[in-house]
């Protein structure tokens, strides 16, 4: 099974030469996300996938993966052609191993970049969207170091997103590679759809920009707060 997946991952790369944008959603699914938030997050992520699929260019250039973290971190969806991907169901449980989650996300992004390079497919530097509603329960310092090093070399764009008002803004700011350490805040689970709509538009713009250039992203909708 694992080998079949490897085959698919590589076949897509040799048959489609479009410059790729790898995106990893790194999601907090700890116990505090139980109930409505996790259900809304699930809907939001599914909406995001559909939005990417409906854009003629993004569909063939944006590649998505999902890492979730609770007491440990897991890749619940690895990179592949979006047509072959189904969003797995998210369940909330356990603590908040954010450091482990970000490290795992960085690993799979790095792995995918290597595959692009091996197959001779050009790519944009990867994006990571880190979403949490709380405080990390593990050590995040190594993950923060890695992110900042990549960020300062323009090899990673990381959007930290606070869900609700109780997330650790200090840590999220440290993870931000955006101007003024920007953090986005989705104040309530009911606004996930707006957030993911904005994200899909941003990803679409970025996937059609000139590699190396900073794309001008659309302004986030008013329900998304920007914390500077």
């Amino acid at each position, binding site marked *: 099974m694992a080998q079949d997946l490897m085959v698919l991952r590589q076949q897509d790369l040799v048959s489609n030469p*479009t410059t790729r944008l790898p995106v990893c959603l790194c999601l907090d699914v700890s116990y505090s996300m139980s109930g409505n938030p996790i259900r809304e997050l699930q809907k939001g992520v599914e909406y995001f996938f559909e939005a990417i699929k409906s854009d003629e*260019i993004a569909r063939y250039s944006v590649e998505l993966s999902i890492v979730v973290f609770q007491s440990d971190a897991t890749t619940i969806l690895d990179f592949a052609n979006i047509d072959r991907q189904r969003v797995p169901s998210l369940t909330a449980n356990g603590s908040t191993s954010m450091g482990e989650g970000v490290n795992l996300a960085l690993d799979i992004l790095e792995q995918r970049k290597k595959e692009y390079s091996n197959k001779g497919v*050009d790519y944009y530097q990867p994006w990571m969207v880190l979403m949490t509603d709380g405080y990390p329960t593990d050590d995040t310092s190594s993950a923060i170091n890695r992110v900042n090093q990549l960020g300062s070399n323009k090899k990673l764009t990381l959007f930290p997103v606070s869900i609700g008002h109780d997330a650790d803004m200090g840590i999220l700011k440290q993870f931000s590679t955006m101007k003024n350490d920007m953090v986005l805040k989705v104040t309530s689970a009911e606004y996930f759809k707006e957030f993911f709509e904005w994200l899909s538009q941003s990803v679409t713009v970025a996937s059609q920009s000139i590699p190396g250039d900073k794309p001008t992203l659309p302004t986030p909708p008013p329900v998304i707060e920007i914390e500077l």
Partner: protein
Amino acid sequence: MNRNLFETLVEKDYKIFVDTSSLMQEDSETVFFQVIAPLLHKYKKQLIIPKSVLNEISKHNYNKHKDIFKANHILDELSKFQLWGTNSKFDEQFADNALTSQFHSLRLKYNLCLITNDNSYKKDGNLSQDILDLKKSRSSEYIKDIKVFFIKNKGITEFKDKNTRNKTTKNKKNKEFKKSTHETKSIFKFSLPKSPKEQDSPLNPNIIPEVGSFVIDNNSKRHKLLKQIGRTGGEGSVYLTDSNLICKIYKKEKVTRFREEKIKLLIQHTIKVQNVCLPKYIVYNNSKEFVGYLMPQATGSEIKTSIFIPPLLKQKFPHWNRWHLAKIALNIVQKIEKLHQHNIILGDINPNNILINNENDIYFIDTDSFQIEDYPCSVGMVPYTRKIHHGKRYENYLRTKDDDIYAVATLVFQIMLPGKLPYSFSGGGSEKENMKPENFPYKCYDGTGYNNAPDGQWVYIWSHLPKKLKLIFCKVFKKNEKIKLYELIKEIKDYIYQLEKDYQTKEIFPLAHKQIDADGNILKDNFKKIICKTCKREFAIPNKQVQDFKAKGWSLPTKCKLCKNIKDPDLKTCSGCGKTFKDKYNNLCKNCRGTNITCNSCYTTFLFSESEQSFYDKKGLSYPKKCKNCRGNKSNNNSSSKKNSNSSGGFFSSLFGW
């Protein structure tokens, strides 16, 4: 008549070279003996048989080529009268002895003639044409005459330049050109200044028209904006109007005097190139402030989303083959040539600015970015921008026709290898970093092969392109040299001709490398298709290779190259011996893990590995109690077989040492 022409050449001391192919035709013997030999005799001349030809003949002799006896016969007979030589003066100084390089050098000193039957377009390369092309090179004033003849119907016939089609058009062109030099006033040419005009500050008009509002054109006609087309871009939005024209309205901060003047300049000189959607009218809002312009409507889908993404190519043009791609390429280059005649530099040539309906119906859009006189084109994309301009801001310099030609060469490359950029290579990085001549990964007839070529069908496609088109790409991307648009046009036209004659594969994604036989003829579909066991996709093995496999008694591969190269994620490197093995749970391979046993003879511990255990179990043997050394000594002592006398030299020598 030809006999007369040939006689004249012999008489006038043309150096007459003979190629192998002409010695092996049905009528070769008749012609050489009855036509050529008497003339040589009459004027006391000799044929020149280059060493490369003699080498080739001996190779054919070795391979027992069925017609080689003719060549042997002709050379034997003619040599009796000393009617041919390998004249060292014409031969030995050339390292590769190839005819073309000999002609290349000798053409400046002597009138030359070649007798060859290598003149078919079916071949990947056409010696007759290549030799005649030598006559047309740049320094042609010094070149003496070159003629090519072939053997046919018991006679010797002159090979006429196959590009006579081009020649007549060239003549026509010359006539047209002469005409047009009279009419230069009628073909309007913009000036080509050296430095760009600077953008000025925004005019900030009060009202930016939106859907439903009216705009007024420079003839005071009103147009209603009916609906927006596409997303709002960086400069503004595009609308359909009730007059069936398309209206571009700039964003407030993009409305400048500069833009207005540039568009006025374009409109003043009515320039018409079919399906190039140039501005037609300038438009103003109700307060008579400049806000945008009107242009004809274009239809079709962008090259980016119709050719450069292969799944979409299959979806949008399922019946297309290479002929359609070549036609598209030709149409694009010809449109650019026409614009260049007016000294319009396109600047931002990219796959989003060209729309395709079908192979003959393509549109150029976003023409307000064209560079006109000293109004620069302020946009561009990295892969279509020459390396020397990387790092510059597009509005800070004026581009040249050569910049456009580089961009269109990249575009044509991407049409031929749908979507693949010339510098994408295995091991590469970003588009910008990749753009170095040494990174061009494809084979260029320069002694080097493929160099980190990207995985997949791309090298197959490359191999199937005609040699001369490949040489153009090599010139641009590997040698970093400039080319002219007419060169590109000529090779694309030739490719179309070869596709129409069915000399080249029409397959957009061929499954194997191009196959060429010993005589240089292209073998079509000369491969066996196989379905890959792993990915279930079709791949192919050339028939020649299939025969090789059979001859060696090997079975044919069941997996495609890609699947064969994929590492099984369960494969690991043994931390003991370093070999790869497959196991989910262990870090040591079967040979390196097992139980430790203490030897009951020397009391050292030795590993009895899992693979040994299973071997012993299979054979029903009891497990060993002694280590290998002690077991070995025993067997050496016990047996006096010949096998041991050789291998255990150490044992005996130690005895002799005593």
